[in-house]
């Protein structure tokens, strides 16, 4: 699951700009004002012409910082987002559902990997970004601060949360930064598969026993409003989106995407036989779109501040997994150093374990992983 919110793209902390200092940074010593102006003109022209900015291209520091922040938050959302769903792996009620859920949670880990790697092209490192997450200096999507209380929540997350994420993310496939845009193409394919799996899970419950139907309705009631909040604050309260729009990192406003999402969900809820918990939803002939009720932004702000039901639990589990895994990463690094072939630099723990994992990855994706199937299905 991936849920970068529009709100996250607009946060003000620009602190990583110079620390990032990649190959295209303006920090290059001795650059003249004229050369800098030339770089900026070339950058602006490339963005205006819808060309991709690539890692070695010159880019403004603030553009780099905005991207690092957004991609890091997106990556963090993927790995924190594993928790609420992994909560149900050991209790999945059929072996088929268990396989689907495990494959989905695994996909999220994979998305985290692509996104951290894409962020690394901007001159940061996964380690640095994880440290910031663990220290509370970077965010993840607030939606994951809600608990998965029943099996139906797995379906509601797929249908609504992944659905909202896709609505947000499809435009990111055209993001001006090349590595991010390309990562998003693959991620969106997988997310759309997750969304359909969630829908299908809810459909089975809705058409099942009375207790199953009630479980599905309860989950939709709890996840609907938080899903709408994933698009970020209303446009009139989101003054920081403007720069991201100009840079073509972001392409549609929060309210525009939110409305698009509601329009998609209303007929789907009808087909599911489930109600959306908003008595004010009605068709607006003039707009050719649905109107809907007022969102309780005070709840959003509280969760954002850390007062959601699971903020503490999520970050504590993440830190614990990281701390408890430290000796494993250290061992991999020590082994790699001892066994590094002469004249090559020692591998990092991440690359050492990546080579170990690659073999296992190849195995399952060749056979029963839903990841392998859905890429084909949506290609």
């Amino acid at each position, binding site marked *: 699951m991936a849920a970068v919110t529009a709100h996250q793209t607009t946060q003000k902390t620009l602190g990583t700009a110079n620390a990032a200092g990649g190959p295209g940074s303006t920090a290059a010593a001795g650059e003249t004002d004229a050369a800098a102006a030339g770089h900026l003109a070339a950058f602006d022209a490339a963005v205006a012409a819808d060309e991709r900015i690539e890692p070695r291209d010159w880019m403004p520091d603030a553009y780099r910082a905005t991207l690092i922040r957004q991609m890091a938050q997106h990556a963090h959302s993927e790995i924190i987002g594993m928790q609420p769903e992994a909560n149900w792996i050991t*209790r999945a009620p059929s072996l088929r559902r268990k396989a689907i859920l495990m494959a989905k949670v*695994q996909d999220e880990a994979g998305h985290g990997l692509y996104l951290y790697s894409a962020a690394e092209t901007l001159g940061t490192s*996964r380690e640095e970004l994880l440290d910031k997450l663990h220290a509370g200096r970077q965010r993840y999507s607030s939606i994951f601060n809600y608990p998965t209380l029943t099996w139906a929540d797995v379906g509601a997350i797929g249908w609504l949360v992944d659905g909202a994420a896709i609505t947000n993310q499809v435009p990111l496939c055209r993001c001006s930064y090349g590595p991010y845009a390309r990562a998003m193409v693959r991620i969106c394919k997988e997310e759309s598969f997750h969304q359909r799996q969630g829908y299908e899970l809810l459909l089975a419950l809705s058409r099942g026993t009375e207790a199953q139907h009630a479980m599905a309705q309860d989950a939709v009631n709890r996840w609907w409003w938080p899903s709408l909040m994933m698009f970020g604050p209303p446009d009139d309260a989101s003054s920081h989106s403007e720069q991201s729009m100009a840079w073509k990192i972001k392409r549609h406003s929060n309210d525009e995407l939110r409305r698009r999402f509601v329009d998609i969900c209303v007929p789907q809820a009808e087909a599911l036989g489930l109600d959306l918990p908003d008595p004010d939803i009605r068709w607006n002939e003039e707009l050719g779109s649905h109107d809907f009720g007022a969102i309780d932004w005070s709840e959003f702000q509280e969760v954002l501040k850390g007062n959601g039901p699971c903020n503490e639990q999520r970050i504590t589990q993440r830190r614990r997994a990281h701390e408890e*895994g430290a000796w494993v990463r250290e061992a991999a690094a020590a082994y790699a150093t001892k066994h590094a072939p002469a004249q090559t630099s020692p591998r990092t723990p991440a690359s050492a374990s990546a080579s170990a994992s690659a073999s296992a990855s190849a195995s399952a994706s060749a056979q029963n992983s839903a990841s392998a199937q859905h890429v084909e299905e949506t290609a």
Partner: protein
Amino acid sequence: MSAALALGDDALVLSHRLGEWAGHAPVLEEEVALANIALDLLGQARVLLSLAGDEDELAYLREERAFRNLQLVEQPNGDFAHTIARQLYFSVYQHLLYGRLAAGDGEFAGLAAKAVKEVAYHRDHAEQWVLRLGDGTEESHRRMQSGLDALWRFTGEMFQPVEGLDSPESGVDRQALESGWLAAVTDVVERATLTLPTGPRSGGWAAGAGRQGLHTEPFGRMIAEMQHLHRSHPGASW
């Protein structure tokens, strides 16, 4: 169909244990790898259990005493080294067993031919980690040795005959399997600068018990968690 149950339950139970790692792995690559191995095993379990009956009825509605898996695979995850020790012992065994089944012309030959490719990767994954942890830092060496030692007593059961599996046409020769396993495990352990455990591997409570439906206490809690939702809605479809 006790052989299908024995092999199917091994895969089902180990897959479940590996699934418990989701969100807790030491590095992101291992989130992907452990989930992949769990998915491979779950896929094998579904095919095998379907040979013996309805996969969900067998997984969710049997009592603890009716499961035929090895006690080794039901052991709790422990730390990462403990999980890797379990992976090494089981995946070397499974790789050798499935290799033999694939070469024979028994009823599992087709399934084994497909699964052996997956299991080869599981074995490689386990071996690479045993090497890294054994020959990594002092702490990882100590933890890896401790994992190998703790699970050693559960390894004898793998070489007890299984009804319906050890027929002449199946290609399984338990003695050859055991000597092959011992040679392979010894090789990895020594290359990892570790010591092969010396305690008893068979006899007493441990030997053959899981195959007879005698499990260890943590297994009861594991299947209670696995089965509770399914059992809470009798007759429901999911």
